[in-house]
């Protein structure tokens, strides 16, 4: 136990780590936005009449929920490269997390869709709404209201998952930056402590932001 703490050099690296936090947040937000779009599609597909569409959606959901996120990122990076789709590490990380998010969210949305009574859709159709308009104006708002809380959870998940990018060589996100500083200076303890606190702060800010949005949109 003769380790002397040197917090000052660690704090001097704070701007770099904050920049890393922004990248982490950026990846998480992007993966959520794309993931939500895909998840709505998948959730609708699970209820479709075509067995092909149902099969594709079910496969996506099963694979995304039953294999590790780390493994999915590996596939996006190493596996896709083999068949000629070369993603750089940032995109591979984004693709992996988006795939994972879409699978988990699709399952949540499927439950949320059931919370919207079919009779409302029929009522909307009889009032002259087209199928798309009925879905967009009647079903979607209620769906998002029902699944808002699990969606926030998934967002925090996405933030935590971005740390896995370090295995495919993402060096700009918070874990990547921390790891690089660590390799350069060997002040492991200090850097990882700061990184942990930063992750905590990002997650907290996101949760608070989500609560604010929920209050603004749904008044609860």
């Amino acid at each position, binding site marked *: 136990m003769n*380790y002397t703490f040197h917090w000052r050099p660690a704090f001097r690296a704070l701007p770099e780590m904050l920049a890393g936090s922004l990248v982490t947040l950026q990846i998480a937000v992007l993966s959520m936005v794309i993931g939500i779009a895909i998840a709505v599609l998948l959730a609708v597909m699970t209820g479709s009449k075509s067995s092909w569409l149902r099969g594709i959606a079910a496969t996506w959901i099963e694979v995304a929920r*039953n294999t590790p996120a780390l493994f999915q990122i590996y596939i996006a990076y190493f596996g896709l490269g083999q068949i000629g789709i070369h993603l750089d590490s940032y995109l591979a990380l984004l693709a992996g997390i988006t795939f994972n998010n879409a699978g988990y969210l699709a399952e949540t949305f499927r439950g949320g869709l059931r919370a919207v009574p079919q009779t409302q859709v029929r009522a909307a159709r009889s009032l002259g709404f087209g199928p798309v308009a009925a879905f967009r104006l009647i079903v979607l708002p209620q769906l998002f209201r029902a699944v808002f809380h699990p969606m926030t959870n998934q967002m925090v998940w996405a933030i935590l998952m971005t740390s896995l990018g370090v295995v495919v060589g993402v060096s700009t996100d918070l874990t990547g930056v921390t790891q690089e500083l660590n390799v350069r200076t060997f002040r492991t303890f200090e850097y990882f402590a700061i990184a942990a606190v930063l992750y905590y702060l990002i997650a907290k800010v996101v949760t608070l932001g989500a609560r604010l949005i929920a209050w603004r949109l749904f008044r609860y």
Partner: protein
Amino acid sequence: MTYTFQWGEALKHLPYLLEGAWLSLILAFLGFWGGALIGLFGAVGKVYGGRLIYRIVDLYVVFFTNTPALVQIFFLFYALPEVGILLPPFTAVLIGLILNSGAYLTEIQRAGFISVRQTEIEAAEVLGMSLAQIVRYVIVPHIAKTLFAPLSSFYIWLVLGTSMASIFGVEELTGRAINISTTNFRTIEIFSVTALIYIAITILASAVLALIGRYAFRVRAKIF
């Protein structure tokens, strides 16, 4: 797209991969029960403890659920040696998983404790049950019923979380898949087989959990 699949290469390594899957399951099992023990104390402290204990447990839970498990294990594996605590990879990963799942399981079990209704306990007392009987016949079945679904889905989630061990050199399923694919470059075949193994073990685990739930706790658990 001139890729020729060679499934034989992947299937040749199946026993090696399955051994890795076994290690994943063991890690998840130990991590789960270690975490469940911490979670039990945490939940009891949060529900029945005083203000101070509540605060301490809450700090632990909030901190460990809001930072990545990867960073926690990094910390154990790379930072602790600097203060003289040298952990082998397997132990570091296991401790990391236990601490991480302990935080989640505290919250899950707390929900179970809260769900026990005071009136049920009072009714049991009126009927003349002893404390042991109340715990055995009223509290435990109730908690088991409410907690079964979240606990089993957390277990599945933990099985997937063990893949992080591969980063620290523990050769579980993901680690072994990477090992093979870097020697023979049949990445797609190896990864597809690995994905199927993961799906198989998680479905198997949920089936076993559903059976246990059905016969031990009379939970109407669906396997699929």
